[in-house]
């Protein structure tokens, strides 16, 4: 488990961007933390670093939004930063953003219609309020966010 303290929004975004570089496709990110803990900020930065061009908006209402990843762009981005990314193969082409905020806490992934998107190497899934789901896959990367004080947040990644 890694633990970070982010003292402002830019710091949270940086942690998300770094995490994005480690992903190679097929991962499942489970985010938890209360309202205002910074989950949406984290996911927005992560998606941007992965090469999602569209602006990420809250999927609370529709539960799930699926975005295209432009592989070329993510490649250029990481090259420009002088780093080699595992995304270089350019095979990851979809980012799925889910928000379980409105769920009651009794569903599993299949009941919310996620069955179509799990365990594909070309897809990365990020779920906010993942603690409201039962039977999360053991391979899930768990990201917990906590508000420490105005603008200060603790982020743990396991």
């Amino acid at each position: 488990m890694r633990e970070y303290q982010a003292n402002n929004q830019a710091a949270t975004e940086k942690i998300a961007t770094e995490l994005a570089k480690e992903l190679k496709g097929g991962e499942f990110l489970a985010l938890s933390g209360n309202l205002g803990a910074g989950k949406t900020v984290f996911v927005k930065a992560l998606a941007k670093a992965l090469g999602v061009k569209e602006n990420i908006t809250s999927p609370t209402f529709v539960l799930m939004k699926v975005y295209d990843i432009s592989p070329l762009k993510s490649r250029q981005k990481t090259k420009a930063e002088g780093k080699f990314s595992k995304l270089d193969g350019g095979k990851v082409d979809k980012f799925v953003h889910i928000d379980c905020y409105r769920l009651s806490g009794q569903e599993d992934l299949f009941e919310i219609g996620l069955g179509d998107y799990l365990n594909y190497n070309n897809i990365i899934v990020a779920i906010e309020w993942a603690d409201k789901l039962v039977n999360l896959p053991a391979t899930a990367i768990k990201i917990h966010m906590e508000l420490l004080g105005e603008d200060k947040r603790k982020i743990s990644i396991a």
Partner: protein
Amino acid sequence: MKILAIESSCDETAIALLEGHGQILQLKKNAIYSQIDIHKKYGGVIPEVAARKHTETIIPLIDNTLGKSKLKNIDYVAVTSGPGLVTSLILGMATAKALAFANHLPLVSVNHLEGHIYSNWLSNSSLARNSQKYLPALILLVSGGHSELILMTSHGQYQILGQTLDDAAGEAYDKVAKLLHLGYPGGPIVSSLATEGNTQAYNFPRPMIDKENYDFSFSGLKTAVLYTLEKKKKISKKDIKDICASFQAALIEVLVKKTIKAAKVYKVKSIMLAGGVAANQVLKNTLLKQSREIGLPFFYPDLKYTGDNAAMIAVAAYYNVRFKNNNYILKDKNIFDLEPQANWRLGQNKSKI
């Protein structure tokens, strides 16, 4: 022209029967089965439960709506095919497809947001009588899932000028209600408490108010409310009312300022409000006042048409047929090509349905 419309994009099952002739719209039937009491006890919508409930209610609702004449005299079947919860959309769409195909009727695929826009036509007969007089129109569409500024140049022609970059306006209400432990759904509770509070007690941010675009951002406003709560040791009833009032004032100020600015820049002939948050009285009053100041007519939907309903879907279908928006009208076997589009953006030309 008689249209049977079906709407099941979230947690309401709705059926309507509309008769339209030229500039006259006559709503014959408008039935809604709301699941809100079912979902209330869970504190949110459960997609599986919503889908099952749609399955149970949709056929009896249609039977009731059509009565003895069944599908005789119906010319079109219309259905919402997005945006919405995919598991809910599927139910209404499967029903509509089967009814249309089996009875050799054309099927009109309607965007849920377009339906909300047309709730204005349902509520204001002057709009139906003389649409051209009021177009182009600037529409502020605000609900639990959307906050968009839309330029409607003519029937079926839309351009999204701006939208929320994170949370929708209605969602911000819901989340503030959650932070204050007020219950679900949050909009009506927060706005009613706000009427008794001081709008200037807290100086919440007006996100993006001076930005040179028409986008919104409400996630930070919710976080500002959270910071305020964290700093307080005890929260009195008066504090709650003041927080609700100050939060609502901030949110409405941003919505209205951007709406009026866009109306001026795009030289529209009217301003319209649509979506679930159109039920908010302070928002309506503020927009009415400021529209008057710039000499523009302001339309808003009747309270009963602000929430999800099928009547608005029928009206949108009527104008799609009348103005031959053929992309969205399917016949015979093509009916089965129609699929739910959970994230269908208004004005987005679909390459194929």
